């Protein structure tokens, strides 16, 4: 059963087409990895899904419900857009935690604002805090609740960012090169968390340069080149039997480093 259908996404910046007709589907509980060389449009695609960019054309369907038809160019009112984007979560390459808040508050802030929780609503606050604690436990950081982002390593910050995204229970969790900003010895802990999420059947889209990880963790892989999907299939199909020349070239060059 497909949870996400992306149809004919087109996006250009200053008349340069960065996404040229991107379509794909994703089933519930599956992990999709997007690979491709720098500038191929991977980040832009994720940003379109999260409405950080507005595509010129295309449709996004979640759970058989049309979320948005970009062609109708309904820039939509803020409120409905906000509601819709909650279908997706996004974990950034650079974490983007809120530096002035404790780890706990980083997780709870958005939920509290969304639910309009008042200070005196002790019950509700306790419930939200408990959820945050549970998630921090899941990413192995329950002892950091009261710490501040600047006191954490990059790997820990990224795990907090993952927990923060999970607080809103998105149907599809997107990652944009979650380990690219990390020292090599810290990538493992983040990848482990993502692997555990997969085992817990979280639907995910992961843009990554970690080929081995993509191969091991994904149900499906998309190879992008110059704004198109050059090749897609199972990890075995793409990594062991690449068909297109560009993918072969890409794989041999990324295996080198």
């Amino acid at each position, binding site marked *: 059963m497909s949870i996400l259908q992306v149809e004919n996404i087109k996006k250009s910046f200053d008349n340069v087409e960065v996404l040229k007709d991107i379509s794909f589907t994703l089933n519930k509980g599956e992990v999709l990895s997007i690979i491709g060389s720098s500038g191929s449009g991977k980040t832009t695609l994720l940003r379109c899904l999260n*409405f950080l960019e507005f595509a010129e054309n295309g449709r996004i369907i979640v759970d058989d419900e049309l979320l948005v038809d970009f062609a109708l160019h309904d820039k939509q009112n803020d409120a409905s857009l906000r509601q819709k984007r909650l279908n997706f979560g996004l974990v950034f390459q650079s974490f983007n935690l809120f530096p002035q808040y404790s780890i706990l508050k980083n997780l709870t802030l958005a939920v509290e604002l*969304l639910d309009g929780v008042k200070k005196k609503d002790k019950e509700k606050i306790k419930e939200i805090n408990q959820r945050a604690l549970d998630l921090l436990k899941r990413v192995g950081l329950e002892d950091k609740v009261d710490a501040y982002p600047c006191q954490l390593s990059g790997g820990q910050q990224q795990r907090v960012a993952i927990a923060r995204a999970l607080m809103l229970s998105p149907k599809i969790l997107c990652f944009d090169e979650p380990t690219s900003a990390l020292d090599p010895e810290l990538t493992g802990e983040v990848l482990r968390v993502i692997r555990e999420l997969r085992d817990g059947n979280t639907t995910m889209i992961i843009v990554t340069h970690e080929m081995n990880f993509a191969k091991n963790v994904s149900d499906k892989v998309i190879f992008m080149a110059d704004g198109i999907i050059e090749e897609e299939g199972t990890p075995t199909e793409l990594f062991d039997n690449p068909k297109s020349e560009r993918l072969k070239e890409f794989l041999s060059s990324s295996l080198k480093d």
Partner: protein
Amino acid sequence: MSFVQVSLDLLEGFSQNCYLFGATLLFSLPLGLIIAMGSMSKFKIIKYITKAFVWVIRGTPLMLQLFVVFYVPGLVFKTPMSSRMTAALIAFVINYSAYFSEIYRGGIESIPKGQYEAGQVLGMTKSQIFFKVVLMQVIKRIVPPMSNEIITLVKDTSLARSIAIYEILMKATDFTTVGLIWPLFYTAVFFLVFCGGLTLLFNFIEKKFDYYRG
């Protein structure tokens, strides 16, 4: 002229400086924010008008601006400024708003785009992002330049004597006409004490934000 008498006289003058200082801050801090918004506006016209305004105000001496505000209404519109203090206040507020606006703008623009985007993908509204995510970070970043500017303001207030406001330096100069020079140097104590207090206050505020980096 006893020391105490001179002190009291200078203190009376300094109260003018303090008044001008306080009132200027009161109006120019919020006004500066509005101007900062203008200079970051999506509307080109508003943006360029505010930028031109800031250029003119920062590009001309405050003393000249005092003269303009004080004399121009009378010369051009035949409605002389009723009060010297009002004229001084207007000039100071305009001048300091322009400087503050640039500090605000610098602070706001220094916040990484990722902070806004993180708020957006978490479903926050624009105003929630500004007030809950960005504002505190902006304040932390602008405290040092603001302190600097505010301490400059303390001393700038004595420019008001150029339109004959009896502030502390004016008073002290009066003493020189009766052969007393030392009150002129004595005024430094008033400024030093005032600025010292402010420095302590700003250090305290900076410390408050020390608990995090970023």
